[in-house]
């Protein structure tokens, strides 16, 4: 059981660490490339989105790659 817990928490830690790194790039630069409404969006709103980006980064990174404008 300890082995499964270690793997689960390790994966969770890696997932959120990548999410944080990607999230910081995304809310500052990336989001504007996939959503035109982000151009006029204020900084405080961008950072409000950070937790959600950390949680859902795999979906957003796919969308960012598809936009071909990284």
């Amino acid at each position, binding site marked *: *059981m*300890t082995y499964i*817990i270690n793997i*689960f*928490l390790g994966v969770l830690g890696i997932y959120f660490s990548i999410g944080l790194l990607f999230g910081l790039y995304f809310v500052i630069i990336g*989001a504007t490339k*996939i*959503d035109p*409404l*982000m*151009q*006029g*969006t*204020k900084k*405080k*709103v961008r950072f*409000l*989105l950070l*937790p*959600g980006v*950390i*949680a*859902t980064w795999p*979906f*957003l990174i796919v*969308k960012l790659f598809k936009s071909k404008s990284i």
Partner: protein
Amino acid sequence: MGLDYQLVLWNKHKKTYDKIIVLSMLLYIVLFAVITIAFNSETSIETLVIRAFGSLAIIMLHIILAIGPLSRLNSNFLPILYNRRHLGVSMFIAALIHGGFSMFQFHALGDVNPVYSVFTSNMDYGSLTNFPFQVLGFLALLILFIMASTSHDFFLANLSAKVWKRLHMMVYFAYALIIAHVFLGAFQQETSPFTIGIMIIGFLVVASLHLITAFKERKTDRVKTEEKEGWLTVCNISEIQEDRAKIFTVDNERVAIFKYDGKLSAIHNVCKHQGGPLGEGKIIDGCVTCPWHGYQYLPSNGQSPPPFTEKVTTYELKLDEETVYINPKAFEEGTEVKPCKI
């Protein structure tokens, strides 16, 4: 529906609802504290906070889960539905305070990582009565975090409505985890029939409302229809009220058929914003207006009026004497279809 994203989409009504939410939460916490101290003055402040915010989060979750079916059964509940997002985020904050204090009190004061401690301090995973219930609470909190953190229009637009909806449907999994968390945890010590009874009644109310709504919608979807030269019979024109719609199912997709200004138009029933039922809305200022958040679409082409960009699919209708017919073939989103004159 906007030209940029806002921190919070507030209007006068939403501010009122938010004030009610905050005041109700504060009132509950104060009442809980007063009653707990009156009956058990030895309760520590940490335990009080954990119990008060835990029970508050559960009550709020039951209300949130009941709002959806209630508003489908009775439109008087729709105004509460408009504010469900804020209620959800408030519930997450209550759950986070409960979880945060629990982790601090029971897992943060040793030399083991608190998260690791939640999973390993009790390894009796094979037991029912001594199951490590805090793990269930942690997993539920993780799901609630995903939901609360994506409760913004940006995520709805960029994760796609389908993905966003699926993420937010995880609330039912979180609910199951929370029920197990409470029954395997708090209710192992708390044996008051009153407390356990309230929890069971809450579950029965939520489950019953969902079942009643599901049966009602299944009845609507299963209406038998005749086909005549590729057109499906919908209803008699008199069955549709002015500026309102009749919802009709075509190829497992719900279509809203609106009657307005001596015309009929049909568009897909699902709003692009949060999947609201457009057919339960009405025509305001010439536009189909979603009953959930007021997103608008022109009935003849399914497009939001400029500068907004949302689009839904459209359908062709015809009227033969008093009978309304629909062509089951959907047009591309935003396609102009000449309204059917009455």
